[in-house]
């Protein structure tokens, strides 16, 4: 039945230094179907799709599109063959308008670009699929969901027969995700196919026609949706039954440790920074912060750790006013920070483990010795921390950028948790980690909570927030829409707040 196959990938193998990302992977897509590509982080889904879309070239294997063998040397050739990919990190030029982004690289627009005409075409095209997009808007003015729609329009404009979506719902609220699913179902009715890369079982069950499962770089199974259940999918994805996470008991919350009162702060661009945010985190509490990217999550974290100066309001730590303290003073007050970009702003990629681990300790008496660093003590200190988190290193001097994401995060946590922090600000602490590493990170945070730390957990993953938090606050355009106890925080409700509804309105609706 090769006639009905749009794409046939056979025995695809791709190696990266030290990793076999794809190992003889098989994948078939039929015309007009939604195929879910399911697998954990690091199972090789994105690599496989980058090969299909011409970004990477396979080391071995064959690809057939509509029965013809192809070998894409660049994304352009893949696009020509009707394959369009929407990457997790959108490939957009922020300073361009939507229309300019859409026509980039296309020859249809003519040498001097008839912008008006193109804008009209884009408007018509997007309306046909129920995609709300303003072709004249500049990318940097758009929300994440809008930017995702631009990516889809970009591919539709090029006449894609197969659209590959890489974890599209990771950045969306539940409501926005549902809208997206409507759009891709709309596409299949027109005979177009969709590959949905995901690690969420419920999404597979909700929209997919079939599902192919990857594990450790190998394709382990392909099933019709109607013939599987979530439990079997989970088993295929992990190679074992998942142990249901033990429902942890709500903690005993103590005194307020960290308090923000009417805090305002600017953002990097012209978007909302923070606007009169007030909140309080108590001893032994995890306060989860939800919000769509660009609505003040990063600004909140940076304001607390002293990296962003306040334009109004105050921050107190155990009753002491620490507003506009320098990062160094904030560290001295016992605040730890697990930044969003662990390699770029938490660690020094080209230095070894020792130099990374003493980053907050080097000037304290002990390691510091007058103007010098006691290198012997520094090594002992580092070894102790490494042992405490159980990371195996090839050498203490080898640049840490060579480590896997999970080990990097363990090193970072080892350093940040070493000084018995009173407050921990963690931003997307498990982004990009596989399940085992993510679980370890979560355990470490819960352990700190039981030791009485006040934790602010900022995440894009609602499930993670619901699993760990005691209370959940929602940021929208720099304003805190409200804080809900986790028992009252249903995903739908939080989702609506992320889109700007007040909690009262949500209750009423």
């Amino acid at each position, binding site marked *: 039945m090769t006639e009905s196959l749009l794409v046939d990938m056979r025995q695809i193998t791709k190696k990266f230094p030290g990793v076999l990302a794809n190992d003889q992977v098989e994948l078939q897509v039929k015309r007009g179907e939604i195929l879910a590509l399911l697998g954990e982080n690091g199972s090789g889904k994105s690599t496989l799709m980058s090969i299909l879309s011409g970004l990477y070239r396979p080391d071995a294997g064959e690809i057939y599109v509509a029965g013809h063998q192809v070998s894409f040397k660049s994304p352009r050739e893949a696009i020509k063959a009707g394959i369009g990919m929407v990457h997790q990190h959108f490939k957009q030029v922020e300073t361009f308008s939507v229309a300019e982004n859409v026509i980039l690289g296309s020859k249809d627009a003519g040498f001097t670009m008839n912008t008006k005409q193109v804008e009209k075409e884009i408007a018509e095209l997007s309306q046909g699929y129920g995609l709300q997009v303003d072709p004249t808007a500049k990318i940097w003015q758009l929300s994440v969901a809008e930017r995702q729609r631009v990516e889809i329009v970009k591919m539709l404009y090029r006449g894609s027969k197969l659209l590959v979506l890489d974890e599209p719902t990771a950045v969306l609220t539940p409501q926005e995700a549902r809208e997206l699913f409507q759009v891709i179902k709309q596409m299949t009715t027109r005979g177009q196919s969709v590959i949905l890369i995901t690690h969420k079982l419920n999404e597979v069950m909700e929209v997919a026609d079939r599902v192919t499962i990857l594990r450790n770089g190998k394709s382990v199974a392909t099933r019709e949706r109607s013939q599987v259940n979530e439990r079997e999918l989970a088993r295929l994805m992990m190679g074992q039954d998942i142990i249901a996470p033990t429902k942890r008991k709500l903690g005993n919350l103590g005194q307020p440790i960290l308090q923000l009162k009417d805090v305002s702060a600017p953002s990097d661009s012209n978007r909302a920074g923070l606007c009169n945010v007030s909140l309080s985190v108590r001893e032994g509490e995890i306060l989860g912060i939800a919000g769509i990217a660009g609505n003040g999550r990063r600004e909140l974290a940076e304001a607390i750790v002293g990296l962003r100066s306040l334009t109004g309001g105050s921050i107190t730590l155990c009753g002491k006013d620490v507003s506009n303290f320098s990062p160094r003073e904030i560290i001295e007050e016992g605040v730890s920070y697990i930044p969003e970009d662990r390699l770029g702003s938490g660690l*020094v990629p080209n230095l070894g483990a020792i*130099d990374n681990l003493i980053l907050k300790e080097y000037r304290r008496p002990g390691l*510091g010795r007058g103007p*010098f660093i006691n290198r012997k003590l520094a090594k002992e200190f580092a070894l102790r921390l490494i042992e405490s988190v159980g990371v195996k290193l090839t050498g203490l001097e080898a640049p840490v950028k060579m480590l896997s994401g999970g080990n990097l995060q363990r090193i970072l946590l080892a350093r940040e948790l070493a000084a018995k922090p009173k407050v921990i600000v963690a931003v997307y602490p498990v982004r990009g980690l596989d399940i085992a590493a993510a679980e370890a990170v979560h355990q470490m945070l819960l352990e700190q909570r039981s030791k009485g730390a006040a934790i602010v957990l900022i995440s894009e993953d609602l499930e993670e927030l619901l699993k760990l938090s005691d209370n959940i606050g929602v940021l929208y355009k720099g304003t805190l829409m409200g804080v809900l106890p986790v028992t009252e925080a249903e995903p739908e409700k939080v989702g609506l707040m992320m889109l700007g509804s007040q909690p009262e309105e949500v209750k009423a609706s």
Partner: protein
Amino acid sequence: MIKLERRAAPSSMGLVLIPVIAVFLALITGAIFLYLNGLSSPKGITWGQVFAVYGGMLDGAFGSTYGVSETIVKAIPLMLCGLGVSMAFRMQLWNIGAEGQFYMGAFGASWLALTYPELPVYLMLPGMVLLGLLCGGLWALIPGIPRAYLGVNETITTLMLNYVAILWVNYFIFGPWKDPQGMNFPLSKPFEPSAVLPTLGSSRVHFGLVFALAIAVLLWFVLKQSRWGYEVTVIGESPRTARYAGMNIKKNIILVMFVSGAIAGLAGMAEVSAITQRMQQGLSPGYGYTAIIVAWLAKLNPFAIILVAILLGALQVGGYSVQTTGVPAAIVFMIQGALLFFVLGGEFFNRFRIVLKNQGKVEV
């Protein structure tokens, strides 16, 4: 089919091999230019003559005690400027103003020597060293401060100040400092013996060598063992992480620029005091620029800088020695530039290896 593969870690063989191959290729490039240039001249040229030029250069630089001592004499300012530049490069501060800082250091030292010629030697020389350091350092602060507080591109500003420094010095030697007995040449009066750095034995190798070696050891120690050295390394590698860790980036930019300029200023002081023994035009044949190559070739390692400086010093002496045979001295700059190209290009092979597909791996 040829394919590139990213290396997990830089190859240790490459670290040594690449500079050696680069030197070799740069010399070949120079030879090709010599040959082509010779062909277009009426007399013509043979490859034998090209190699004779290199032979002459080698002989000029190392063939005699005089040659060796001249090589070291040329290497001293390269060592000092290279050490200064490397300090800034380590923090990703592209200070290419060592030339100007060199001139200002020489200017400061000369000012003392010419204004207070009667000072005893134990005040004069330390005073000149101090003023050399200070003037070079302050000159580097002019671009350093706007860089620290406003993020003004230091590459351009440091370079612009080279021209300003040379014009500044020229003003003095063509004007107020001009030697009445100098037959109208742009020279200052000669310094008193008290203002001349001692030499080692009867050669022209002077006390500046001790400065260079001492500073190399000092920098190595500071970078390896001190809190400040650690901060400089972290800031250079990852400013965002450094900021989060509470390091004062602005203060360190200013400090590093000052130190970087001060060391180059000391080079100027040593040169003017020990070699020319008066302020004069064209004090530096571009030491400040060659120092950039020295620092990069040495991968910013203080001890490697000493060695590379000697190598490039030899190239310069060799270049001068063949000038009499009609080869333009500019060939030296050309070979230096080519050398840097090959080193930069070679670094690629530290990060990637070339793989022949369907065949074994070929290490490069």
